[in-house]
């Protein structure tokens, strides 16, 4: 009897330290028995499997493109159609304007997580930070072939730069918008001088626009998928000399797909960019409790495991350490361009139009 009591207490304590979703939530979630999630990251499928095994709740996980997710949620919730229960979304600017403001999505922070997740990541609730860096083929080159972003505007490197189609994924447009921000544009102007040895002559508003125009006029290759991009850069035995601004976590294919991929951390003036992914509840969710439980699960070490297995994705939960061999996000943060919501809100359209003039 006593032994059993101690055992029960021990189990209770154990569960408290590992993961402590409230029993009432678990019961309610199990009653719903199902949860539907739309996600911009494909690794949700692995997390879904783990969640199914743990709670016996069926998961339908759909991996969508950034633009697709926004479109579907807006149309479904706006039209009163029941679709997703919660989403893992990106492209904060558009989500805020098109989904949160009309009330299609709302924020939910699990109680147990309030003390763990840093306050600034709680509204909207952040799942992770995703980084995109300049990757090159480490079989063709022992050292990075370029160390300055202006190389991609240099005829010597014509057609050798891959970039993800910003229409397919809005965060890339956010990055292009951010580099037109005066502070960053100034850094770009300085980097220009370091590369070409002469001060920049502006034909556009600032050095940020100048760089965008430069890469577009220098045979920029638009990719529709980071997977394809990583394969195109890293394939072995072909002497590939391309460089791409690509989701860093794709280096996880090194082993399985036999790719040679390394980031260029010393790129001048920035080594890439980063953006958050958000966990948001859908206002007309059919299975709200299961969704809440899943959100909580994704913020724990156990739930984040599919993403922890590679470089390039960093949980908002500080207890989850980055992948061994990767820098911590604090270091990357200094090297990469971030997202400034207010600046994006006011300037993204101008950059979009500028881009459309040259690109599509």
């Amino acid at each position, binding site marked *: 009897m006593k032994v059993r009591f101690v055992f029960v207490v021990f189990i209770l304590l154990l569960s408290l330290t590992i993961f402590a979703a409230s029993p009432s939530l678990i019961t309610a979630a199990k009653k719903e028995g199902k949860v*539907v999630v*739309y996600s911009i*990251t*494909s*690794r949700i*499928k*692995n997390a879904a*499997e783990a969640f199914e095994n743990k709670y016996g709740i069926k998961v*339908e996980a*759909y991996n*969508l*493109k950034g*633009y697709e997710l926004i*479109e*579907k949620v*807006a*149309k*479904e919730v*706006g*039209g*009163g*159609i029941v*679709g*997703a229960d919660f989403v893992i979304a990106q492209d904060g600017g*558009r989500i805020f*304007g*098109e989904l949160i403001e*009309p009330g299609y999505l709302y924020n939910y922070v699990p109680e147990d997580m309030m003390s763990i997740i840093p306050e600034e990541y709680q509204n909207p609730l952040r799942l992770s930070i995703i980084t995109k860096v300049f990757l090159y083929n480490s079989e063709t080159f022992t050292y990075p072939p370029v160390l300055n972003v202006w190389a991609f505007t240099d005829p010597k490197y014509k057609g050798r730069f891959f970039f993800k*189609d910003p*229409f397919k994924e809005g965060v890339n447009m956010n990055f292009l918008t951010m580099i037109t921000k005066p502070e960053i544009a100034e850094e770009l102007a300085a980097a220009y001088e370091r590369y070409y040895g002469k001060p920049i002559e502006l034909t556009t508003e600032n050095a940020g626009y100048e760089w965008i125009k430069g890469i577009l006029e220098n045979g920029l*290759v*638009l990719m*529709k*998928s980071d*997977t*394809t*991009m990583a*394969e*195109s850069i890293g*394939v072995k035995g*072909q002497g*590939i000399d*391309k460089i791409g601004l690509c989701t860093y976590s794709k280096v*996880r*294919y090194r*082993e*399985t*797909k*036999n*790719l040679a991929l390394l980031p260029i951390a010393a790129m001048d003036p920035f080594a890439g960019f980063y953006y958050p992914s958000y966990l948001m509840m859908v206002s007309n969710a059919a299975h709200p409790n299961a969704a809440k439980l899943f959100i909580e699960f994704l913020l724990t070490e156990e739930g984040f495991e*599919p993403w922890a*297995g*590679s470089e390039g994705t960093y949980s908002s939960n500080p207890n989850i350490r980055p992948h061994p061999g990767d820098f911590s996000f604090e270091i990357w943060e200094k090297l990469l361009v971030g997202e400034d919501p207010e600046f994006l*809100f006011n300037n993204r*359209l101008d950059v979009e*139009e500028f881009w*459309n*003039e040259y*690109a*599509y």
Partner: protein
Amino acid sequence: MAKLLNRIVAFFQKPENVILVMLLLALVYLTIVPLFSIAFDTFTVHSSEVRRIRGSSAGDFTFYHWNYVFNSRSSKNLFYKPLLNTTLVALAVCGFSLLTGGFFAWMVTRTNLKYKKAISTLMLFPYIMPSWTLAMAWINFFKNSSIGGAPGLFSALTGITTPDWVAYGFFPIVMTLGMHYAPFAFILIGGILRNMDANLEEAAVILKASRMRIMRKITFPIVMPAVLSTFLLVFSSSMSAFAVPAFLGGPVRFQVLTTQLFRTLNGVNPGAGYIIASVMIIIGTLILTINQIIIGRRKGFTTVTGKSSNISLVNLGKLRTFISALMLLTLIGISIIPLMTFAFQSFLVEPGNYSLSNFSTIFWVGEGRPDIASGEPGILKNKYIYKGLVNSFTLSLTVAFIAGTVGMLVGYAVAKKRGTKASNMLDRLAFFPYLIPSMAFGAIYLSMFSVRRGIIPALYGTFAILVVVGSVKYLPFASRAGINAILQLGREIEEAAIIFGVKWWKRMLRIIIPIQKPTFISGYSLPFISSMRELSLYILLVTPSTSLLTTMLFQYNEKGWDQYANAIVLLIISIVLIFNLLINKITGSSIDKGIGG
């Protein structure tokens, strides 16, 4: 008053009148009203455009879109260049398919070619396969490492790196679409050549006219209407192609109208998208109306008289075997190589490594590993694929049932009331959806049904909207079949039954349908097969839970998970081919009648 009432009651006692009125109402609602809705949408601020149009709020009236599409900094790239590209592609595809199809048709009907039966059968294969399969095969085969990642099979076999213009953009789009529509030309031109009264040519031969002269003065003028008709049909089909330019044009930023339509309607700027869709509808309607006029002019009753002795075939002489073998091999290549590349690619783990050690069944039966394609299980173990398969099947069966049945009723009503205004109107309305490019048709339904309108709730995201759009779009196939079937029947048979007081539905089920079974079956089967392989019609309207095999294929392709995409293509092709065979067996007639042999 009472008299009028009596007349109304009498009018509605005839089943054909009831059918006529109901169908007219339904079709006006489903084809004409949406056009107003889309026109309205080109002047409306949508919620995703509020930031774009400063100081506006959703639902406002605006000229912004019209200005943006036709007269702004972005117009050139958004509209004019894609319009030019679309036109050039369509023209080149017409040229290619007419030359190829026409050449093959002439060879089969006018020379002593060997293997005619095999060539005629194989010639239809590229058309039976969905057009984007050829595009994917092209990428598998010709992709180069400068854009598409790992080199394709061609480079692996020969060591030659394909230049960009061969691998992507205008050239491959024209080649794949041209190959896809060549059978069209082959069937239409071949049919005329085969049934043409050979007396004309014989007379010319007797008069010692040269081969070339006969071709120029007799064969061409007779074949011309078919050529023109093919030209217009192929032109409008190429114009509405979406998947092929999306797959092959993307990497080199080659945009056509459909790809811009897709881009703008997906959140960026729906208002502009609706304008592009309207432009496509206008062009499509114009082209096919011209076609109708041309066909209408030829609508004499050409009775096929007993054919005169066969015209002496051109003797290919020493080259006979060589040319025959070459043509056969070309066709085998076009039919078989794509299938082989799909099979190949779906087993390769490392891109571009074609050694045996790199083959794996993981993409077919794997459990899903996070380090390969992010943990997606293989397609035979993948619940999402099964869901897509079930969705595709359910949708296509439902669409076939509705389109086939309504088509039959249209046929009945139109034929019974022949010559009346209402009958002509119904005939035109039922054919109207054929004139509208698929993707634009999807767009008008998006505009019409994504919000609540009166008693009709928002249908976006439901299975019902896919059923409706599919049924209406494929109604023309079925109503053509229905009209032909009832017209051929003559009135006497049914009148005899009416005299005996047989009820209407019994007359249909016991007399009319059994007699015309083959025609009606084709009215059901064509919509089924078309819907099974349709992408551009549905892509704007699916949501994750209503995904179809084709839209999933598009998504996998977008994600760059080529192995999955290739595996799904094999799945779709198998289904389409099996059904084609089944229908041929059941009805004893092929949908795509061969001409040779």
